[in-house]
C-alpha cells in the first residue's frame, strides 16, 4: 500500500491482467488475417496470412458506406458538441444570472435520464417529422449533451477569475474572452472531450439501429450488426467459416481507427476521465 518499490508479484499480476484485456483484441485482428477455415481448425496458430476475409467482407456488406455515414455524423454532431458544450460550461462556471442553479439542475437531471425511455417517442417524433432514415435523425438528438457541459463547467471553473477580468479590462467582447482567453487555457480538456465524444459517437448503436433502416444511412456499427445476424442463418459447412472470417475482418477494421486515435491521444483521454470523475 505504501509507496515502496513494487514487488515482482505485483508485476506478474499486472501482466496477467494486461494479457486478459489485450488478448481478445489481438486474437480478433490476427485471426482476421488467416484463411477462414484455419480460424476454426487451429484457432491458436498463425501461419499463412491473407486478406481474403477482408475481400469477402467488402463484397458482402456496404462497410464503406457505414464508415462514410459514421464520419458525417461524427463531424457534424461532434462539431456541435465541441462548440456548444464549452460555451454552456463557461456560462455556468463564470457568470451569475437569474435561475442559474435551476437551469444547471436541469442539465444534471438529464444526465440521469436513461436513453431507453426516449427511444419510442423519439422514433415517433422522427417519423412525424419525416426524418426516419435521414442524417438529421442521427445527428440532432443528443448533439449538445449534458455530460459534456457538466464536465466543461468543472474544467473552466478551475480558471482564475482574474484572467477573465483582465480580458474584460482589455475591452474584449464576451465571446472574444471565451475564444481568446478561455479556450486556449482549457486546450487539454478540449482534447479529452474530443476523444470521448469521438468514442461515444463512433460506438453509438441503440439509437442508430432504431432510427435508420435503409442501407444508405446506416452507420458503421449498424452495418456490423447486420453482418453478425447472418451468422445464425449460416451455421453450416464452409459458409460458416467464411462468415466467421468476415465477422472478424469487419470487427477488426471497425476497431482499428479508434484504437489508433486512442493510443496517440491516450494521455489526454485518461487524464480527461480522471479529471471528469468524482474524486474521493
Amino acid at each position: 500500500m505504501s509507496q515502496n518499490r513494487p514487488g515482482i508479484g505485483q508485476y506478474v499480476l499486472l501482466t496477467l491482467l494486461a494479457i486478459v484485456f489485450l488478448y481478445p483484441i489481438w486474437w480478433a485482428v490476427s485471426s482476421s488475417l488467416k484463411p477462414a477455415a484455419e480460424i476454426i481448425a487451429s484457432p491458436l496458430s498463425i501461419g499463412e496470412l491473407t486478406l481474403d476475409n477482408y475481400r469477402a467482407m467488402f463484397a458482402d456488406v456496404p462497410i464503406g458506406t457505414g464508415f462514410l455515414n459514421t464520419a458525417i455524423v461524427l463531424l457534424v454532431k461532434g462539431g456541435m458538441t465541441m462548440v456548444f458544450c464549452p460555451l454552456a460550461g463557461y456560462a455556468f462556471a463564470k457568470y451569475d444570472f437569474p435561475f442559474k442553479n435551476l437551469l444547471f439542475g436541469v442539465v444534471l437531471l438529464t444526465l440521469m435520464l436513461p436513453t431507453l425511455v426516449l427511444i419510442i417517442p423519439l422514433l415517433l417524433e422522427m417519423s412525424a417529422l419525416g426524418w426516419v432514415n435521414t442524417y438529421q435523425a442521427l445527428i440532432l438528438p443528443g448533439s449538445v449533451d449534458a455530460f459534456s457541459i457538466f464536465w466543461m463547467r468543472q474544467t473552466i471553473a478551475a480558471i482564475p477569475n482574474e484572467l477573465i477580468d483582465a480580458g474584460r479590462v482589455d475591452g474584449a467582447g464576451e465571446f472574444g474572452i471565451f475564444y481568446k482567453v478561455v479556450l486556449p487555457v482549457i486546450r487539454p480538456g478540449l482534447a479529452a472531450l474530443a476523444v470521448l465524444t469521438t468514442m461515444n459517437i463512433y460506438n453509438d448503436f441503440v439509437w442508430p439501429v432504431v432510427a435508420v433502416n435503409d442501407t444508405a444511412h446506416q452507420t458503421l456499427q449498424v452495418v456490423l450488426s447486420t453482418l453478425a445476424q447472418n451468422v445464425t442463418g449460416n451455421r453450416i459447412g464452409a459458409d460458416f467459416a467464411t462468415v466467421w472470417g468476415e465477422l472478424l475482418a469487419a470487427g477488426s477494421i471497425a476497431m482499428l481507427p479508434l484504437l489508433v486515435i486512442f493510443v496517440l491521444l491516450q494521455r489526454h483521454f485518461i487524464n480527461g476521465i480522471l479529471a471528469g470523475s468524482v474524486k474521493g
Partner: protein
Amino acid sequence: MRLRSIRLTPYVFIAPFFVVFGAFGLYPLIYALQLSFMRWRGGSEARWVGLDNYLYLLTSPEFWSSLGNSAVMWLLIVPIQIVAGLGGAVLLANAKLRLRGFFRVAFIAPFVTPLVAMAQVWIVVFDQDYGLINYLLNMVGLPDVGWLTSTAWSKPTLALLFLWKTTGFAIIILLAGLQAVPGGVYEAASLDGASRWRQFWSITVPLVRRSMAFLVVIQTLAVFQMFAEPFVVTEGGPYGSTTTAGLYLYDHITASDLGTGAANSFLLVLLVFGLSLVSVRMLRPKDEVS
C-alpha cells in the same frame, strides 16, 4: 447597452442545450408519458386505456423474467467489477511502478473498442463447436461448454463481455480517487504499526467510497439498459435467458406495441432510479449520514 448584452450573454451560451433538450428530450419524455396510458398496436387508432399497460406488464411473466435476467446480470457484473476495479487501481497507484503508462493503456483499450465489433468476436470465441474457448478446454481434457447455447451459461458469458469491456474504465475512475490520497498518510500509518490490510480498510476504502458510489450508479444504469450485447450475440436466447430489460423494451418496438413499450420504459426508469438511490445511500461514508 453593454451591461444589457452581458446580462443576455449567459442565456445565449446555454441556449443550444435547452433547444436540443426541449426538442429531443423533454418533448419526447412528455409524449412517452402520455403514450404509456394509451393502447396503440400496429396500425390501429390510439386510445386512452389508463393504467392498463402498466397492469399488463406487472402481471406479465415476460416482463418479470426480463427484469430477473437484468438483475442476475447486475449481480454477475457490479460486485465483481468493483472488487476487480479496486484491485487494479491499487496495483496501478504506486508512482514508482515501471511501465505504468503501458498498463493504464492496456486496461482501458477494451473500453475504446466498439461494442458491436467485440460482440462479434464473442460469437466466434465462445462458439460451442468451433470456438477458441472450448478448443482450449478440450486441450486440457475438459468437455465442451455451451457458452451461448445453454441457459445456465448464456448470462455469465455476456456478463464477461461487459466486464471485459468496462473494468478498465472502473480501474481508472478508482485510480482517480486513490491518487487524491497523500502518500504520507500510509507512511504515518505503517509507523503506527498498522498492517497493510488495516491500511487498506481504514484509509484506501473510505477514500474511494465516493468513486465507488459513482461507478455503482452508472453501471446500474448501464446494466439495466443493456441492449447491444444480447441483441448482437444471443438475440435474447437461448429460451429468453438473455432477454434483458433493455432488449425486452426493444421487442415492443418491433411488435409495434408502443403504448406498452412506453409504460415499460417508465417502470424501468423508476426501478433504476430506486436502485441508484439505494446504492448511493449504502456507499455513503458513515459520518455523512444525516
